[in-house]
């Protein structure tokens, strides 16, 4: 079935934040720093203030000295006394139209005093590196437990299993490998936008491209110093998120401009601003040390994962302000002794944030590449080496539960079976590579309110906006199934004011936590319906059933429609309603596996890679919405291809050089590889109707599968991504001793 908001989207009726049009609305635009690290000596806005159509010009001195962030508050609304990255916001203007705003920006004069800057995370960790946030320990919500004495490291998290020293003592061979991945942008086609309009009574109306509106209201209240009850977050459609739209971005600035001018203010980032100052995937360096026994058993895995947080940590939402994907540094293998250290480091580049399966891609690229390398060194088949080390029921995973129902072997077998893996190698410069990953099912908080309306329909209120993943459709399906109703009798709407907190969309949690809360609420609502129906029919509750959309008295066969039950109400006056909240901090003892096989061909004269075939196999439970489920797989897979072959937010000395979509290339329709999806299904999932999670699966192992296939094709091993034709060409030149 198609998704419920489909008609509005295909006709252009669906409204996104930039589509909000209010009477008297004006435009805000920001001036950004051209330097990576500098003191602000002075800002002269006099000329700008006088220009035609300009209604306000603000700098930090016009705002309270407050910092903000998704968890730790370390980022100012406008740079206060210094700038820490090229692109940091320094001043903002409000004008009658965007062109006039731009005219004014050009006349603002900022005097800077340059400071030494550092761009590489490892360099930033050295004792002589300039410190970006000397006072970081005093920032609100900074997690003390994860502080570090290493310069510029604002968070150091460790995961351990067993005893790592004991593990290496058991190893016959020890391998060390290092890998690096760049910043990549989420590539959502809708840039960030926000609109703020302040009512005469002081109510602050906010429209924002943000997939966690309840949390957004909390954060906004803190940074603009207005109580939450006076803030209303209006929900627009979101033009995709992929983890990158969880912050306030320009909403606080819109508020201050609205307050100053008395007019509604809209700010829309240009795509250049997105590429310069969005919140891309963290550039990551992964060091792996692996201990293996004589028999090829991985007995110890030590990992040091260094994440370049950029100038601020403000875009990380997880309580330990680090990147959770680091905990998968032992991969899908039942390694008894593990120690993982993840460092999040400040440096003078664009602040990094979350992007679909944050940390998973980077770490999986390292882990699955090293598996092939170790297998080859030991003279073992790369498939068999993995199989003998796979996780099994009862194994623990770092940062996760003791697992049950582990189906990694079945998932990989399914991928291999659907590929050309077992066929004899046909042509030179062709290769096959595989990679396997897993993802625990997301936890968090979910809320809902279900109401039986007077027309007999069920209204489902959720604070989770539709970011494009089909979440609303899933919730609709779950409620409809639970209540034995046709889909069109259930309507899902977003509403944020009635809920106090919510984890929102993301982390592969919506179907699991969100699905459970609506399923439970629906069950409770059914009880209320039966009770009211029984009362209306003048019989006992145990004498009625729900059949054919009506409350039926099993003996007399008298019945009431839902509309009639609604009119009766709970106590004759108010609507039948259930409000429910679910907070799951612990996930089920289940993880979901993904296995991919990539077949490709390398043109040795140019280094160009052509993907011939991709198989992606997924270990799934019941699929609630097949069209939506497959859509998530396909979209994620192409993002994985982008990560492996094409995408790189190129930076030199903190300056992003790929500043529009003509230079930062996103895969297009002619770039797609032939794709086969294999679903390894069993009705075992823990989500409603035994569903599992799919949103952050297919993107993860593609990079490693490609790297492994390239090695298989031409014998060249890459330790960094993307694997471009240029890199392959030079590697082949070296490999063949410089022969053409």
């Amino acid at each position, binding site marked *: 079935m198609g998704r419920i908001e489909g008609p509005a989207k295909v006709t252009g009726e669906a409204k996104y934040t930039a589509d909000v049009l209010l009477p008297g609305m004006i435009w805000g635009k920001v001036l950004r720093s051209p330097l990576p690290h500098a003191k602000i000596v002075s800002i002269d806005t006099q000329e700008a203030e006088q220009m035609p159509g300009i209604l306000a010009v603000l700098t930090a001195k016009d705002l309270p000295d407050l910092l903000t962030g998704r968890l730790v508050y370390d980022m100012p609304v406008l740079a206060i006394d210094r700038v820490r990255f090229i692109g940091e916001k320094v001043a903002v203007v409000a004008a009658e139209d965007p*062109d006039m705003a*731009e005219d004014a920006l050009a006349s603002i004069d900022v005097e800077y005093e340059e400071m030494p800057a550092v761009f590489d995370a490892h360099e930033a960790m050295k004792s002589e590196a300039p410190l970006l946030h000397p006072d970081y320990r005093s920032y609100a919500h900074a997690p003390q437990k994860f502080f570090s004495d290493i310069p510029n490291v604002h968070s150091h998290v460790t995961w351990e299993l067993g005893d790592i020293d004991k593990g290496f003592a058991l190893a016959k061979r020890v391998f060390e490998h290092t890998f690096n991945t760049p910043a990549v942008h989420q590539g959502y086609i809708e840039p960030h936008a926000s609109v703020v309009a302040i009512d005469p009574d002081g109510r602050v109306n906010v429209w924002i491209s943000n997939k966690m509106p309840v949390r957004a209201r909390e954060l906004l209240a803190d940074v603009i110093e207005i109580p939450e009850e006076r803030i209303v977050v209006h929900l627009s459609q979101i033009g995709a998120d992929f983890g990158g739209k969880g912050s306030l971005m320009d909403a606080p600035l819109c508020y201050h401009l609205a307050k100053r001018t008395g007019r509604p203010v809209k700010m829309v980032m240009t795509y250049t601003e997105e590429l310069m100052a969005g919140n891309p995937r963290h550039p990551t360096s992964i060091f792996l040390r692996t201990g293996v026994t004589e028999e090829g058993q991985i007995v110890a895995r030590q990992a040091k994962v260094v994440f370049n947080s950029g100038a601020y940590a403000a875009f990380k939402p997880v309580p330990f302000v680090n990147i959770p994907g680091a905990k998968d540094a032992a991969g899908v293998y039942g390694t008894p002794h593990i120690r993982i250290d993840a460092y999040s480091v400040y440096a003078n580049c664009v602040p990094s944030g979350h992007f679909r399966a944050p940390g998973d891609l980077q770490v999986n690229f390292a882990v699955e590449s090293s598996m092939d390398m170790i297998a080859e060194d030991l003279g073992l088949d790369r498939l068999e080496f993995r199989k003998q080390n796979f996780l099994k029921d009862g194994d623990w995973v770092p940062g996760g539960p003791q697992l049950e129902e582990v189906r990694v072997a079945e998932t990989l077998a399914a991928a291999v079976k659907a590929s050309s893996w077992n066929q004899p190698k046909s042509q030179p410069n062709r290769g096959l590579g595989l990679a396997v990953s897993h993802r625990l099912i997301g936890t968090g908080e979910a809320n809902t309110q279900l109401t039986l309306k007077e027309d007999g329909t069920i209204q489902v209120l959720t604070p989770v906006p539709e970011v494009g993943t089909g979440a609303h459709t899933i919730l609709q399906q779950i409620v409809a199934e639970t209540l034995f109703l046709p889909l069109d009798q259930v309507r899902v709407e977003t509403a944020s004011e009635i809920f106090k907190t919510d984890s929102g969309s993301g982390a592969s949690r919506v179907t699991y936590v969100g699905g459970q809360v609506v399923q439970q609420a629906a069950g409770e609502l059914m009880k209320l319906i039966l009770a009211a129906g029984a009362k209306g029919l003048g019989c006992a509750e145990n004498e009625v059933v729900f059949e054919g959309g009506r409350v039926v008295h099993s003996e007399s066969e008298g019945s009431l429609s839902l509309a009639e039950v609604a009119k009766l109400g709970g106590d004759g006056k108010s609507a039948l309603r259930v409000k429910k909240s679910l907070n799951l901090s612990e996930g089920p003892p289940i993880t979901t596996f993904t296995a991919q096989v990539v077949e490709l061909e390398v043109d040795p004269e*140019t*280094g160009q890679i052509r993907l011939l075939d991709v198989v992606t196999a997924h270990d799934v439970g019941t699929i609630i919405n097949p069209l939506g489920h497959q859509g998530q797989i396909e979209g994620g897979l192409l993002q994985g291809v982008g990560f492996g072959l*094409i995408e790189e937010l*190129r930076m030199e000395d903190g300056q992003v050089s*790929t500043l529009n979509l003509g*230079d930062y*290339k996103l895969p297009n329709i002619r770039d797609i590889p032939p794709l086969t999806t294999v679903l390894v299904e069993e009705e075992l999932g823990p989500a409603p109707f035994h569903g599992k999670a799919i949103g952050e699966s297919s993107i993860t192992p593609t990079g490693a599968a490609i790297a492994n296939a390239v090695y298989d094709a031409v014998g060249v091993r890459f330790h960094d991504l993307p694997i471009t034709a240029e890199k392959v060409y030079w590697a082949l030149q070296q490999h063949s001793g410089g022969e053409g």
Partner: protein
Amino acid sequence: MRAFEYREPDNLEEVLSLLHDHGEDAKIIAGGTALVIMLNQRLIMPSYLISLRKLAGLNSVDSADGALQLGALVTHREMETSPVIRDQIPVLAETFRQVATLRIRNMATVGGTLAHADPSQDSPVTLMALDARVGLSSSGGSREVPLDEFFTDYYETVLQPDELLTHVQVPLPKPHTGSIYLKFLPKTEDDYATVGVAASVEIEPSSQLCRECRIVLGGVAPTPLRVKEAEALLSGQKLAPELLHKAASVVQEHTDPISDSRGAADYKREMAGVCVRRALEQAWQRALTESP
């Protein structure tokens, strides 16, 4: 973008008169696909924008005296689909077809592309390999310039501030000539070429020796690069791998690429050699298999 005065003359004299009056302070806009980006980014800030939208007479494709005359306002999409072009100079239609995306091709013009003078563009490379000439007019008169004398540097041509490019003349290929435009795109199918090569080989049918050839490259120098030294190597020779390798080496020596998101300079230089070899090979094959 900065504010400007907009003019939309419907006759050539008025266009030229405006150019004469405002010269350096004015920019011509045709399809606008390159210009609007530059205006948006404030890379150029003219006081006057002279639009050719209403100008009649510059948007046709005519065949006369052994040449095609292309009006400057013919769009890429028209070049791609024109039966006359596809029949008489198919390599030209093939080249225009590979430019950017459909939307751009619906607006971008033959003349606008030449005047923009970005050496990574596709059509100037093929046009130069076909010995095209451009017609330039000003209120003081007209002149014709061979395309390989037209470009002077990145985004710079011999066009004077008061001149308008009005048409492009392309001689029909001689018999027994094979031509190809090879666009090397290592990263994604929608991009400027990392290296573009237009190769044209005319052979003597009985001996199969090369009479004349043209080798022009895009993306490897400040302007489209024609390498006469390499062309001379092929003259009077038979198609052979060593010959193509030698020609490729000579071409490489003449390249002067810059590093950008399409590739580092040294990679572009290497690929220039590879692509020249491949293009010459394919052009020669086309010449050999062409029906008499």
